[in-house]
């Protein structure tokens, strides 16, 4: 199973979600399918994709939030699983693309290549809805279910360690960041009061 095919299989369902991806191949491949203003690519700060999703999900409980994480990133913040479990945001779907590798820096194997089980970590942290998938059909099915479930879900998608040739895209980091915040401001017209940035952007 390839990550790009997984993303393609569920791309249409991301339309009404706030989407956070980690850096590298995930950000690049999602952009290759078509960037949308509701997509935010965290192009560094490895490990904080799930934390960003949690902040969004807690502040906007009516809004579905999807995080596309990776094994290398989540291994830098395994405690983040316990924080997700502690607050159980019902509007958050967490996907880990597990290619057992730090692909973008040359493909060095991560601990999932020697048996560390992220679904097991998620479950033992207290996330009841978690599943490992390894086919596109299964991934699509589990993701569809998670979006409908209205319950915190963490999906581990086992994918091949292949990605794009390069990782820098035309979308500037700050352009993406301001566009994403403006998109949310439009969704929540009265959630920002006296916020200097909002005034400047409006």
């Amino acid at each position, binding site marked *: 199973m390839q990550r790009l095919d997984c993303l393609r299989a569920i791309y249409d369902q991301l339309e009404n979600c706030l989407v956070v991806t980690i850096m590298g191949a995930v950000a690049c491949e999602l952009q290759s399918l078509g960037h949308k203003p509701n997509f935010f690519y965290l*192009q560094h700060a490895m490990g904080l*994709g799930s934390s960003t999703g949690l902040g969004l999900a807690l502040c906007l409980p009516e809004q579905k939030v999807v995080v596309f994480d990776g094994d290398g990133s989540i291994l830098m913040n395994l405690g983040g699983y316990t924080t997700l479990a502690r607050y159980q945001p019902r509007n958050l779907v967490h996907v880990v693309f597990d290619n057992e590798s730090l692909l973008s820096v040359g493909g060095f194997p991560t601990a999932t290549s020697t048996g560390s089980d992220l679904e097991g970590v998620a479950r033992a942290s207290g996330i009841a809805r978690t599943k490992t998938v390894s086919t596109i059909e299964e991934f699509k099915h589990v993701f569809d279910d998670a979006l409908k479930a209205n319950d915190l879900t963490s999906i581990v998608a086992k994918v091949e360690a292949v990605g794009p040739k390069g990782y820098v895209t035309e979308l500037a980091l700050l352009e993406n960041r301001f566009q994403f915040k403006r998109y949310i401001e439009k969704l929540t017209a009265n*959630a920002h009061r006296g916020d200097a940035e909002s005034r400047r952007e409006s």
Partner: protein
Amino acid sequence: MPVSLTNSGVVYDALKKCGIGLVSALPETWLVHLIRMAEDDPKMILVRLAKEEEGVGISAGAHFAGVKSAMLMQNHGFLASINGIVSFAQLYRIPLLMLISYRGHFGERDPWQTQGGGVTEPLLRALGIPYSFLDDPAKVEKRIAEAQTWAYASLHPAALLLTRELMWEEPA
């Protein structure tokens, strides 16, 4: 425990006046009352962390969502958060408001805190993060408000150091 309940209340009230709607925290001695106040406040979203760096991501998510936030942490938590501060809050221009308990400075009796006390201000300066001290209850509200105003005007992290003078009532 001689952590000042009165001055913790002064700090909490100041955060509320600034419109803070989310606080992320990892407990440490000086922060216990503040965290309890956040927990008892039905209008505050309190996120208890496993490691302080998570708070950078959570605050960034809150900022995107239009909610003002603050991180409550010990200076060792600040040390543990530096990659997130640089590669998220600074890289993506997030107005991160950090309240850092300034352990390990003069008056500190816990030997294990002393090394962190010595590097806190040099690190803030090296990172280009402006900071001021919360040392006088009469000035707490103004200093927190000013730090937040600057953070939003510059879209950059700002820090407030919670000092022994404010937080600890036992004579040294």
